[in-house]
């Protein structure tokens, strides 16, 4: 019998640095501080850490982190590719390691000087030859060099097909900004966004304007995963991993899956939905809140369909009905998300999923939040995570 990951592991601690535009310190230091904070949150010593997982894009080595925080001997360390597509993939690695006894205390982290150092939004350049670079070679000579240029092609096609307007994207941006208004960690803390400001903002890659884009942020975020059984005896109410998966589908490219028959859906996200719901024994009706990956506003609307909250082409109706707001059917990115809290490549969306299950988010809905769905990056190989209480 294969081992199921359902209810085997739990997130027992979350930790982060402040989020800023200039941290003034190394990415290694941001990693170490956020990992220490996650351990403090869980009430355990960093000397118990025996597993570490991060993104291939993270600049800091596991062994540097281990020495910096004074970790235990490491029996499991791993990296996930594809930018924000790695987010819940790191939790997947941790849950597998714990369920199979490869490690007991795994920390997943992402630390980046994403504004003052290497900016993800700066995109690609033609420096090294590899299969990945040959992939980008179909775009670079034409001037498609940055994430907005890659994602706008899909957004435009989808919006044209289903009658989604710029105002609809604005509704997503404003919904998330409204959450950020009350979140002291957030870029958007105390900074309201109006529809007039949204509509008047600079067009970047049509139909996407400035406010459709995520932030660029300096900061670190760490998630501590251990067995569900052990997590129940630690300091915080555990966020139990009901299901977690990775997903990449046929015709998958990194950001430019343009050569599939139709472009108005996210096949990799549909696969992630199928896998994570099956593993958890749950469906869309069981999900009380979400942290859907939000590098761009358009991605939220498409994911509502991928995860079965709305039928094809009807995700926008949920947005117009206010379903994503605090009193709506599916409060989403209640911290402000990557768009209005910070861009820590999706790790901060996982941390918010944990807060929602604990019941202590600054955007906590008044209803009981039993299950939260978190997704990884859109337009790349991705994954999904369902967290539950107890």
């Amino acid at each position, binding site marked *: 019998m294969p081992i199921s990951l359902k209810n085997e592991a739990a997130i027992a601690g979350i930790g982060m640095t402040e989020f800023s535009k200039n941290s003034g310190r190394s990415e290694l230091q941001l990693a170490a501080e956020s990992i220490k904070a996650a351990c403090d949150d869980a009430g355990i010593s960093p000397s118990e850490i025996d597993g570490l997982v991060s993104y291939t894009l993270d600049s800091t080595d596991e062994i540097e982190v281990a020495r910096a925080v004074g970790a235990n001997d490491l029996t499991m360390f791993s990296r996930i590719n594809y930018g924000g597509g790695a987010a819940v993939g790191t939790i997947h690695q941790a849950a597998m390691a714990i369920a199979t006894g490869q490690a007991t205390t795994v920390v997943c982290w992402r630390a980046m000087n994403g504004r003052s150092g290497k900016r993800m939004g700066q995109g690609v350049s033609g420096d090294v*030859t590899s299969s990945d*670079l040959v992939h980008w070679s179909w775009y*670079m000579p*034409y001037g498609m060099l940055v994430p*907005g240029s890659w994602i706008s*092609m899909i957004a435009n096609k989808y919006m*044209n097909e289903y009658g989604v307007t710029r105002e609809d994207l604005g509704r997503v941006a404003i919904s998330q900004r409204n959450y950020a208004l009350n979140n002291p960690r957030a870029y958007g803390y105390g900074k309201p966004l109006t529809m007039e400001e949204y509509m008047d903002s600079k067009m970047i890659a049509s139909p996407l304007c400035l406010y459709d884009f995520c932030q660029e942020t300096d900061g670190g975020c760490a998630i501590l995963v251990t067995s569900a059984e052990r997590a129940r005896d630690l300091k915080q109410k555990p966020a139990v991993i009901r299901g977690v998966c990775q997903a990449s589908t046929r015709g998958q490219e990194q950001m430019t899956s343009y050569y599939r028959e139709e*472009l108005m859906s996210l096949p990799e996200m549909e696969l992630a939905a199928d896998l994570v719901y099956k593993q958890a024994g749950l469906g869309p009706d069981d999900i009380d809140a979400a942290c859907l990956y939000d590098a761009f506003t358009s991605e939220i609307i498409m994911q509502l369909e991928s995860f079965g909250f709305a039928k094809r082409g009807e995700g926008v109706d949920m947005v117009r009905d206010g379903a994503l707001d605090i009193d709506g059917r599916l409060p989403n990115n209640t911290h402000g998300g990557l768009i209005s809290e910070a861009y820590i490549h999706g790790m901060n969306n996982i941390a918010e999923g944990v807060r929602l299950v604990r019941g202590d988010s600054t955007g906590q809905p008044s209803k009981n939040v039993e299950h939260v769905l978190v997704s990884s990056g859109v337009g790349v190989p991705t994954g999904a995570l369902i967290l539950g209480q107890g």
Partner: protein
Amino acid sequence: MSQPARIKPPMGHDNAWWWEMAADDKLGIQRCSGCQTLRHPPRPMCGDCRSTEWDAVEASGKGTICSYTVLTHPQFPGYEYPLIIILVDLEEGTRLTSQLVGCEPEEADFGLAVEMVIQEDPDGFKLPVFKLAEAS
């Protein structure tokens, strides 16, 4: 001082031939020798029959706009903005990413017929781009 130029594609075994065809004023499509399937972007093995044998056919250059985006920010040296980027469904059945030239951004639309033209940069680099097809 030479003018800033667009980023050149890194050339490897799997893609250089396509740019060499462009330098020869042709739009290429890779064709599997095992099952005759056309594929783009090119790959060293056919995902249908796993053959590593292939040749290239010359496309007619006729197609329609599947999707598009107009890029205005950020602006990189070597490119002219606003930049109209299009996905073209070629009449041969494959799709490629390219640029629409010779018209205003407002003229771009879904489903419009386009024709390939070879654009030559001041430094001699040749790039297959598209213009709106003449009304027939």
